[in-house]
């Protein structure tokens, strides 16, 4: 009895205390939150200030069936809210003056930097984005060729949200492997590395259709944007950093009378550094496997000599892509491949002497590219459709 009374009193007391003191501090009902799906950072017209654009999902509209809405002129399922301010944090907070709901970032899928802001350096903005517990590290980092806010306004047909659209474009990159996909964690890893240069996806808005499309890779030196890789160079980069999933390589047929398209099905690569006589030498070994996807020439490519020659052409094409990327990287003097880290891991003693002068070393490193590629299958047909 004694014990029971004590326990009951404690429990009731606790419940009352809980009701009283915890109240509703961190309680937020779903309909008091504005879910941000994309964040764009632009330079404001006023010097030294930035303009933040957040894309907020309207859950009601996104779920409502199209027919029920007001037809074509119905309201958009998102709301882009813009605010000018000094720092990211203060600007985010200032947005609550315009939005009746609290901005909520954990479901943010893309972070877009405009080109001009990226050229000035992104570290100062990244800090908030990794310090605040609301942001997740799996958001994609994208650089817009022009203004970030424009990207968030682009037209989408299948996806309902521009930000979601971009995230899905990035996820679908593996079909071509011609654009890089970098999330916050990877970007941060590169940013914190002493030698490796950060990269990000590059996005452009087509002037006519107002649609967004990925066009390559933005390359940073330290935290400042220094240049871009086009699609070929990007694939060259991805070959080296082992990020190729799939893609189409177009080569000319051995008889030279048309093109053949080869589909990459598997690829892997290794960076092997070597220091000999105070010279850094790097060997990039790429292994790839592919299919014959289509041919536009009339030649019977499944004959052994033609097949072998096709394989050789495939290797050559890969090699040229890698070399193109390498050339661009040297030109920008940005170690996008992570050669420096590779050397560091293998030669940790010597590294201390090299570390600080890596910028001088990098453009002059000797790089050997070894490509070993195979063609495995030819699809449903073995010969082009032509009369025998």
């Amino acid at each position, binding site marked *: 009895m004694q014990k029971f009374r004590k326990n009951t009193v404690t429990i009731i007391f606790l419940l009352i205390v809980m009701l009283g003191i915890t109240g509703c*501090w961190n309680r937020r009902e779903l309909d008091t939150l504005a879910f941000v799906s994309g964040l764009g950072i632009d330079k404001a017209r006023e010097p030294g200030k930035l303009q933040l654009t957040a894309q907020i999902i309207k859950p009601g509209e996104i779920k409502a069936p199209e027919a029920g809405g007001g037809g074509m002129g119905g309201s958009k399922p998102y709301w882009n809210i813009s605010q000018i301010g000094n720092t990211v944090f203060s600007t985010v907070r200032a947005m609550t003056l315009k939005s009746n709901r609290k901005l909520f970032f954990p479901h943010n899928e893309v972070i877009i930097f405009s080109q001009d802001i990226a050229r000035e350096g992104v570290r100062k903005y990244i800090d908030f984005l*990794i310090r605040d*517990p609301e942001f997740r*590290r799996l958001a994609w980092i994208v650089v817009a060729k022009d203004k970030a806010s424009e990207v968030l306004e682009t037209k989408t047909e299948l996806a309902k949200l521009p930000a979601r659209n971009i995230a899905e474009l990035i996820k679908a990159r593996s079909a071509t492997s011609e654009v890089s996909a970098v999330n916050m*964690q990877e970007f941060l890893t590169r940013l*914190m590395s002493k030698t490796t240069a950060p990269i990000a996806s590059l996005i452009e808005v087509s002037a006519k259709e107002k649609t967004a499309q990925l066009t390559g890779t933005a390359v940073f030196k330290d935290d400042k944007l220094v240049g871009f890789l086009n699609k070929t160079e990007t694939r060259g980069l991805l070959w080296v950093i082992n990020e190729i999933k799939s893609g189409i390589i177009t080569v000319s047929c051995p008889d030279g009378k048309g093109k053949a398209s080869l589909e990459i099905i598997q690829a892997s690569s290794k960076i092997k550094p070597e220091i000999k006589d105070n010279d850094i030498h790097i060997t990039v070994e790429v292994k790839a496997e592919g299919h014959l996807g289509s041919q536009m020439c009339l030649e019977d490519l499944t004959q052994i000599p033609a097949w072998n020659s096709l394989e050789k052409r495939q290797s050559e094409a890969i090699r040229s892509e890698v070399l193109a990327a390498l050339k661009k990287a040297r030109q920008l003097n940005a170690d996008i491949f992570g050669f420096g*880290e590779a050397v560091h*891991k293998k030669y*940790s003693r010597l590294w201390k002497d090299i570390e600080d002068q890596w910028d001088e070393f990098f453009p002059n490193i000797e790089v050997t590219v070894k490509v070993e590629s195979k063609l495995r299958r030819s699809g449903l047909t073995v010969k082009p459709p032509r009369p025998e």
Partner: protein
Amino acid sequence: MLEKGKISSSQLTFLIAGFTLGSSLILSPGLVAGHDAWLAVLAGLGSSLLIAFIYTTLAVKFPGKTLVQINDIIFGPYLGKLITIGYLWYFFHLASLVLRNFSDFFVGLIYPETPIIVFLIFITLTCASAVRNGIEVIARTSIILLFVTACATFLTTVLLVKDMEFTNLLPVLDLPLKQFIKASYAATTFPFGETVVFLMVIAFLENTKQAKPSVTLGLILAGILLVVASVRNISVLGVTEPIHTYDSYQAVRLINIGEILTRLEIIVVGNFLAMGFLKISVLYYGTVLGTAQLLNLRSYLPLVLPIGILMVILSILQFESTIENIHFAFDIYPYYVIPFQFGIPLFSLIVAVVRGLPKKAKEGSK
């Protein structure tokens, strides 16, 4: 007897493992060593096995006696009491430190707008209810909680295999020896050396002779889990690891398998809390039982709530900010614990051997 319960050797093993994992799952030990932290943990485990040997030898020499009674026997009633008071302070302070760490974790990451006192009170109440039920109950909960934690640690590790970059562990031992020793030493004092509180618990072992193997096994079990967690964090986070306040939490946040198995951090949060509960409970229990023995009370139950309240107060007062906390943890704590973790136990053992203790006659006088 203040405590009627008896624990089996396997329960002691699980209790030690859970205790050692305690707060070290959120605050990774050996961080100073950068990407060699896992080696520092291993080294810490190795040296702590030696220290644990001192503890267990001491405990086996005086079967059925807690640290308080051992101190009385070895150092006599006056000096012994003084040393006991020192130890009680250490347990009490450590408990409030861990309490603060966990509450900070919740406030910092999940409940930014809630005052810290809420978490302090609720965690303390939970531990108090366990302490009131005695060591037997704490030991029983430890089995289940440790099992769940081990499963969760391995599960999160497996889910992160995709994101692991084992080259992040290279180059091995890429730091000055001095720094590595410092990191290993830090790993020894936190968490392994804190097992000194088990001198209050081993006395209730069913078979005191099994103390050595079960303590060793418990430490190794915890060590393995910590190394697994450490390797996981380093290989996933790479160079970004050192900037994080809670690296395990951050690593788990990166789990993303097909957009479905993602956002799983609540699992680790649950585990953190469970392990923290074990650690605080054992320390809390040690403090309460020790105080009761010191004051010659018939039951320790009346002490549970007052000491709990003091613990909450100390938790609030000891640091103004997490920055002070980190400073204390890294720069002061490793030296602060020297007498408690190594000095006094070693000295006790030497004195006991020299004086030929325990003498049969001495035992009767308590």
